């Protein structure tokens, strides 16, 4: 049976584009596979649940009940891709728990493929968070997301050595446009007749990057 991917979109910093990344990935997977299960672990930020209520459920890692409810779902190889929008406040606790319970090892045993999509930033918290991930997670399962709207320059050297996914910067007016709760990336692609618009090309570029990421992960496993 093929592996079930679990994409964990994370950063120890707020407002770096995690939810936007999680939306993009969720809509891509929904388009490609017809089904996706998204989990929103956000307390204080714009929330995935508000954008994609039909496929998203809230989750928490503050107590054991919450951890069980989330992780016992993630570890199942059911063929339905999972996306987690991991709020910055939950970053440390999630990965501490993951390390303690042996999530990566158990996932590999069960045919579940976690992929950490770490949204990069230049501050110390991000550097510390990334270093922690490198100690815990195999390098092949970490993808650094270079959100050009946030980084506006080169990636920190420590984050530039492995797999990178670039999300181009949109002009501010388009960023505001896609931030509307009712906006859907896939619907835009389907209904916008002019495929030369900047937004159309941006979405397609990102979907293509995701497809390439999927393929590279598949090749790596085989």
């Amino acid at each position: 049976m093929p592996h079930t991917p679990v994409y964990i979109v994370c950063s120890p910093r707020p407002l770096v584009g995690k939810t936007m990344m999680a939306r993009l990935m969720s809509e891509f997977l929904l388009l490609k596979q017809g089904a996706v299960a998204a989990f929103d672990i956000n307390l204080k930020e714009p929330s995935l649940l508000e954008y994609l209520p039909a496929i998203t459920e809230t989750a928490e890692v503050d107590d054991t009940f919450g951890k069980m409810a989330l992780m016992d779902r993630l570890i199942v190889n059911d063929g339905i891709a999972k996306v987690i929008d991991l709020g910055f406040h939950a970053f440390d606790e999630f990965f501490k728990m993951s390390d303690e319970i042996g999530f990566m090892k158990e996932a590999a045993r069960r045919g579940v493929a976690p992929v950490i999509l770490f949204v990069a930033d230049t501050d110390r918290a991000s550097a510390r968070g990334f270093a922690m991930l490198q100690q815990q997670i195999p390098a092949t399962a970490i993808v650094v997301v270079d959100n050009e709207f946030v980084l506006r320059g080169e990636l920190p050297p420590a984050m530039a050595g492995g797999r990178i996914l670039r999300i181009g910067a949109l002009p501010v007016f388009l960023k505001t446009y896609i931030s509307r709760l009712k906006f859907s990336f896939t619907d835009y692609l389907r209904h916008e007749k002019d495929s030369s618009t900047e937004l159309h090309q941006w979405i397609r570029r990102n979907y293509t990057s995701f497809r390439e990421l999927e393929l590279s992960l598949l090749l790596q496993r085989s």
Partner: protein
Amino acid sequence: MTKPVVIVVGADKGGVGKTTVSRTLLDYFSANNVPTRAFDTESPRGTLKRFHPDITEIVDMTTTSDQMKIFDTLNSSSPSVTVIDVRAGLLSPALASLRDIGFLDAAKSGQITFAVFHILGPSIASLDEIAETANFMQGAKYFLVKNFINNTSFFEWDQATYNSYFHRIKDATELTIPKLNEMAYEQVEVASVPFLKFVANKGVRDEAANYSFVLRGYVRHWLANVWSEFDRIKLTDLVGSGKLGDRGEK
């Protein structure tokens, strides 16, 4: 013939996690392929027997017949390792009984390897118990166990006072049992299986179970920490090499 090993696990009061420590010992020996038998003195209930029914017998250590059952079979029986979970509050009386039947002399002379795991409570009474137990510990290995599984805080102890008691016992070794997630502990209790079986997701009769992956992970992590303490004190050497008591023989 292998020298018999007797490990007594005791505490001065209930609820400090004595039987939990006994269970981790049995799992440790099982994982290290050390054949072990256990005696549960919580007669007639037997908490230890609930988790390790195949290797545990419930006994009443105050009766001669049960004392004979344990100690008369030491030299003749296999397995060679015997773990005795002594009822709370009865550690010193149990050790006094062992003294009276000549068991402590046998340990001192090197015929038997004898170890005591004294599970400490947070009150100052525990420290007095150490002093009392010290009288019985010649020729035996004495392990003082701070068990944090119940979220115990040992704040009542002044460090200098503790050190003065601790150093009264020659070769006393301190061990720490870390805290285990409460829900994980509870689930193991409900499942009534050894920690090792819970981690392996197995039921009472080795059938496949459906325990939470998260809780199994917490137990696995905790058990690994506990066992690393047992490795640190070279527990397998203790039960295998029989170095204790060589002093007496020589």
